[in-house]
């Protein structure tokens, strides 16, 4: 179900915890699985659960508790914008509005070409850099003025072709 590379990464996570505590690696394993497949299907969650020898519902609880796991397909680029108060004061809401307008989608939606999904985020611990976006969970973009958003979208658009 996952590449040997992903499995090796999961094994590295497992090794961080005491031998009897494999379950500790479930967050890392789900992250790695999602990174490879872009979202967590039921089968994928079950696979991870079995790999770690935990009940599937225990893995499912985790997958549905933490915001950054996607349990439905997302676009090639998932863009999360922080609109929490400190960010809003620094232009976060304006950035989100601009993104909605440019991509012509609302929060939780994906562009027709399947390239972009826009998500409203909570505090990313980067309020001083507002507006901030997170691309595909792992790449943070700071000080995202309109111009910076234009440039970023153009760059991603190209990458996505």
């Amino acid at each position: 179900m996952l590449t040997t590379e992903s499995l090796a990464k999961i094994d590295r996570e497992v090794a961080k915890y005491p031998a009897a505590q494999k379950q500790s690696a479930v967050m890392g394993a789900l992250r790695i699985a999602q990174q490879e497949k872009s979202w967590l299907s039921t089968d994928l969650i079950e696979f991870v659960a079995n790999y770690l020898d935990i009940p599937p519902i225990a893995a499912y609880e985790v997958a549905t508790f933490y915001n950054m796991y996607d349990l439905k397909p997302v676009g090639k680029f998932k863009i999360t914008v922080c609109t929490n108060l400190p960010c809003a004061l620094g232009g976060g809401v304006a950035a989100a509005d601009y993104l909605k307008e440019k991509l012509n989608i609302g929060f939780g939606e994906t562009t027709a070409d399947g390239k972009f999904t826009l998500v409203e985020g909570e505090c990313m611990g980067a309020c001083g850099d507002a507006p901030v976006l997170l691309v595909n969970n792992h790449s943070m973009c700071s000080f995202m003025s309109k111009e910076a958003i234009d440039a970023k979208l153009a760059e991603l658009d190209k990458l996505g072709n």
Partner: protein
Amino acid sequence: MLEIEINGQQLTVETGSTVMDAANQAGVYIPHFCYHKKLSIAANCRMCLVEVEKAPKPLPACATPVTDGMKVKTHSELAAKAQKGVMEFLLINHPLDCPICDQGGECQLQDLAVGYGGSSSRYEEEKRVVANKDLGPLISTDMTRCIHCTRCVRFGDEIAGRMELGMANRGEHSEIMPFISKTVDSELSGNMIDLCPVGALTSKPFRYSARTWELSRRKSVSPHDGLGSNLIVQVKHNKVYRVLPNENEAINECWIADRDRFSYEALNSEARLTKPMIKNGGIWKEVSWTQVLEYVAHGLLDIRKNSGASEIAGLISPHSTTEEIFLFQKLLRAFGTNNIDSRIKQSDFSADSAYQGIPWLGQSIAEFSSLNSMLLVGSNLRKEIPLLASRVRYAVKHGASVATITAKDTQQYIKFKGKALVSPANFANTLLAVLHAVAQSAGKPLPASFDTKVEVTALHQEIAKTLLSGEKQVILLGAEAQYHPQFATLLAIANAIAELSGAIVSVPALAANSVGAWAVGAVPTDAGDNAVQMFAKPKQAYVLFNVEPELDTYNPAQAVAALSSAKMVVVCSAFKSAAAEQYADVMLPITPFSETAGSYVNTEGKLQPFNGVVKPQGDARPAWKVLRVLADVLELPGFAYDSAEEVRADALDAEKILSRLNNRLGDGFAVNGLSAVDSIVRHAEVPLYNADPIVRRAPALQATKDVAVPVAVVNPALAERMGLSAGAKVQVKQANATSSFELVIDSLVADNTVSIPAGHPATSMLGGYFDHVSLERV
């Protein structure tokens, strides 16, 4: 010990007690939802907030440890305000649908809302709606009613041994659910219904059929496994509507297995036999009791006169009551035959003369919760005695280690320390090797009769080490050992291991009254035939009592052949059956446990009497009365009993049962022929909802995943050697019997083993459970 004051009442409690424990001890009620004495503390409902002197905020009684000198007020203004506040939060998203809710009248939320809720709601936003879940045929859901107490989740994880429900999502979106498209398959699942304080989880078979206040509650005892779970049977209009646990800490605690809970459906089913019937020229005819008893008496007298009473055999189910069994054997013996047995699925009786007492659990049920180490031999304990398995898991959670010798690696939700997956044919030499390993570790000499050569591997040593690791050790012989053709040998080796290690040997009763049946004499004496012999050497007449030999005997093909050629087959049963209609000549409708007074002796030797909870259906009659009248018709003296109690008093002395229980064998018992076997044998489990006539007729249980069309399972190595592929149809031959099955390949089964369950019509034409078998592609 700690001093605490609750509402001005002074008391002393154990160190480590919570405020809730103390309140319970003081008889003070503190409202609660998530707290349950048998589950871990979640402290999430917040209903039990109380005032604790010097604490700035109200504290949850369920989770707050008592400190010495603590002063608690459960009804102060602070406490009451906190409790009211929580109640308001619980109700804002709860549908106020009590009139149509199955929990109505027995809902903790409803009860408490009356005492703690406000009169009208200040919450005017839209209420939450939560999608219902398909949890399988037993539990029905109304998830919008859920108050997120997580009792159901904790039950699965902590008591049932497997987390099948979880609380997914978070915050307000939290939902109780199984993993996508999975159901709740635990054999203990029904307890979640009892635990759910609201109407989110209710009984599917019971749903909408009655309101709790219309039902009367009668005490009874479960007729299924040997535990003897205590029941509350709920009755309306002379019909059983529902079965609930009757708490008994020493036996079933506050739980019952699904089998105990949902099998009642069979009692009300169309399958009940309610008229005496006689077959005449192949046609069944309803007759009166007088006619039927005359007919039976006549037939039996005829056979005795022409061929002798030894041509009559009586087989009685160990699910029958003590009184029935006592009268059954008394009648047959008085009539002149000793071919009487109740050990219907057993195949090895070679130790019959060596038993030092009646085989039993070996110690009390409760002691299983505190055992330290255990060896399971041929046991799928979870499915044999679900609540005993739950006690073992409890012990494991508290540090016990368990090893197993099995032919199929069934899921016990226990991490085994030592697992020998071997063909049933190799149970005995594996156990012998463990005995050798135990002797080595313990540095003790082997008993002479076991000093044969056997190869001891690291695995045997590991199993021995596991068993020796604790102080309270148990070697348990499960169904596959008890029905095994080398049962006596296994028991002898187990006893030898016990001798060296200090372990207790346990032979748990797999039927409600196995111990009672033995105690009142339902075993052959004076060269009478046992359960196998009576079919191996066909008799002219059979009296079958609550047994369906085509499903319930070790070698159904042999049993059916013998029955089919008999002159007369008398069936006493609560149920009709197509098979019996073929082989029987006469059918006597007797009542199930719910319609007669009686008693069971459970596997730890406890006699538990009960009364009928409803009146007999149709013309069915309590069997003790039937047997008494039959004795009269046969003119046998000594049957003038006026009540079940009188029969019981004559049958056994409850005080003395314990002293009659013993799993040891006398010195004379010899062990031989223990070399490793590498031919192919069958492994037959009796699935838990196929184990007796009642469960087999309970529709909801029959719809669970535990009931499946039998397939033949082999491991990959055997499949490869035989060139068989998964999904293929294979012909299975046992002696003269042949049936075909779909082949499943699974490494959970030992090599050289074909696992095909018993207790199912599709396997009723096969031979012995653990006998040699051959496989061929069709």
